[in-house]
């Protein structure tokens, strides 16, 4: 028996590189008439070489910044007639995407495939396919990779 469809997760990092991913998610949500969830994950790795005592403050600030970034995406979705929600999580990017996909029993997970990323990042062509397979295996959701030219 086929699982009931329950939503689309779009992992958003913000910035021009995220726009093709957001656009793809909105068009898919419209096409399959599913609720759309934009996900922002707070990553504090950059604090490794700075003041460690500021972790709680900066985590709070980044969460609020993440909410705002998602709000801009939600605004865009609303303008195109798609209802969207924003979810902010903190932790490991891979784990949090899989966890949310499992929690929502998501049908689709939209990931961006931008250019010029660092090698250590999971969002590089070599590693993202591996990661997509892992999401599909762990959550049952279908992964869609959004390619496109970043908007200015």
């Amino acid at each position, binding site marked *: 028996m086929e699982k009931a469809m329950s939503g689309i997760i779009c992992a958003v*990092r913000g*910035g021009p590189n*995220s726009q093709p991913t957001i656009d793809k998610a909105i068009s898919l949500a419209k096409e399959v008439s599913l609720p759309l969830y934009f996900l922002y994950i707070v990553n504090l790795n950059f*604090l490794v070489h700075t*003041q460690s*005592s*500021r972790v709680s403050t900066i985590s709070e600030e980044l969460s609020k*910044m993440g909410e705002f970034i998602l709000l801009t995406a939600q605004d865009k979705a609303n303008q195109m007639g798609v209802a969207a929600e924003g979810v902010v999580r903190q932790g490991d990017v891979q784990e949090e995407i899989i966890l949310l996909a499992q929690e929502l029993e998501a049908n689709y997970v939209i990931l961006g495939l931008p250019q010029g990323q660092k090698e250590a990042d999971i969002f590089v062509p070599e590693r993202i396919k591996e990661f997509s397979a892992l999401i599909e295996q762990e959550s049952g959701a279908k992964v869609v990779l959004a390619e496109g030219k970043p908007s200015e």
Partner: protein
Amino acid sequence: MNKTRKRYLLSAILLCISLALVFSPTGSAAEIKSNESYILGYVYDLQEQPVSGAEVNLLDGDTLIAAAHTQADGRYALEIPDTKLVTPSLSIGRSHFETVTLELSDTQLKQLSSGNTVVIEPLTLLRQISIAFWISAIIFAVVLFLIATGTTHNTLAALMGASLLLGISYLGHPISDELFIFDFDVSISYVDWNVIFLIMGMMMFIAIVEHTGIFQWMAFFAYKISRGRMLILLPILMLITGIASAFLDNVTTMLLMTPITVQIALSVGINPLSLLIPEVMASNVIGVSTLVGTPTNILIGSYGDISFNGFLQNLTPGVIAAFIGLLIYSALIYRKDLSKAHPASDSLMSRLEERGRITQPVHLKKAGWVGAGMLLMFVFGEKVHLLPSVTALIGATALLLWIRPNIEEMIEAVDWTTLVFFMTLFIVVGAIQEVGLISIIAGWIGNFVGDSLLLAMIAITWLSAILSMVIANIPFTAAMLPVVGYLSATVPGADTKVLFFCLSIGAAMGGNGTLIGASANMVTAGIAEAAGYKISYGYFLRKGLPALFITVSLAFIWLLIKFL
């Protein structure tokens, strides 16, 4: 007991204490006996700097007659016992210096025999380049390299350096004297506790202020009064960031200003970097104007004995000139990006308004009062020789007592890793000072600049600005302080502390040149990247290098006008 009896009792106690002090056998007056003779003198190094801690021994043949150590000003006083001397000689030695032996002349011997004091001509000790010298230099270079490349956490790098230096001194000394650098007491004497306590006090104060929402409120207020006009918003945001950085630390300011700036930029549809880069540069520039504005100023102020007012009076006009230059430059390079701004949507605007609220008004009010009190103490405290560290501690404690927050949370808010970094860094820099590397570098620079104050100002300002681009400015400044101290004492006209101000400008504004030049740059880049706007090394260099030359040049011109 009535008031009069209490007063009598108190007076009697005070009288007894006073009498005990006056007739105490340990009093200094009791130590000097009129019939004893002394040998007095001074010991200097090749750069004419006093040598402290040198062992001065009076020998008669192989027999030790008297011994003393030189003080911080290089002075020594040997108390000569009532003994008949035959062939007396003076031996003066210290680790990392060649030992000097001086035969006393017949005249001096006669003077001593007749109970008179002999004053010896000032002596110069020559540096000894031992294995310890090279070990200390290599360890310092490795620590700098690890910090610059980011392969090891700053604190761990400095901690490793300090541990190695002390470990080699203690474990190597029994094998060879050449392996001795310094003992624990001497290493600790290089730690500047005024700096440590000042930073600690300010961290506690900032930990309370940062939760009040004041930064977010100021940024939103700036947006409101600019009415969305970016060429008005840009200078206001730069000014807010800069002034906040002058009183709080740059990293905290940028940690709090960057997320709200990103939100403002996104709401009006512009690239956040067009606001963030000018903001972080303003933070690096305006922070220079106060003693507590940058960690390098805290180091410079404590070493050079420069007060809060000293920085404010001597650097503010130069900083204002540099800020105006930076503002014009920023508006020019980002004019295209800024012109793309459009009015924010209602939903984004209402979220911005929500973010721009003061979250803890009572705490903010109390912090405002205490902050004002601290500012007054910083400004007027120098009249009573009040150390800035004491002001910071009093302010932080008063605020904690008034607000009564969870004390454990507040103590956790103190960045102990940074404090350990400073303490261990002082030990690492102390080692190269102890073995004479700093004296050699000071000698080279001294030879290069000669008697020219202008040349010394150019050398210190631009050397520190350029080097601060590639190596962390805190260890660099810590190492440069004794060099600048030496030049201030030897170059004619440099006793105004102008070279310390040159170091302050170069080390802090030099941080604008590269992404790794200042911690605030790295934090801003990290948050911007988390919002999807990457600040690469090359991008920052392209924007930052011209800013460095503009700001350092303008501030330097001010120093030339004021001090030449």
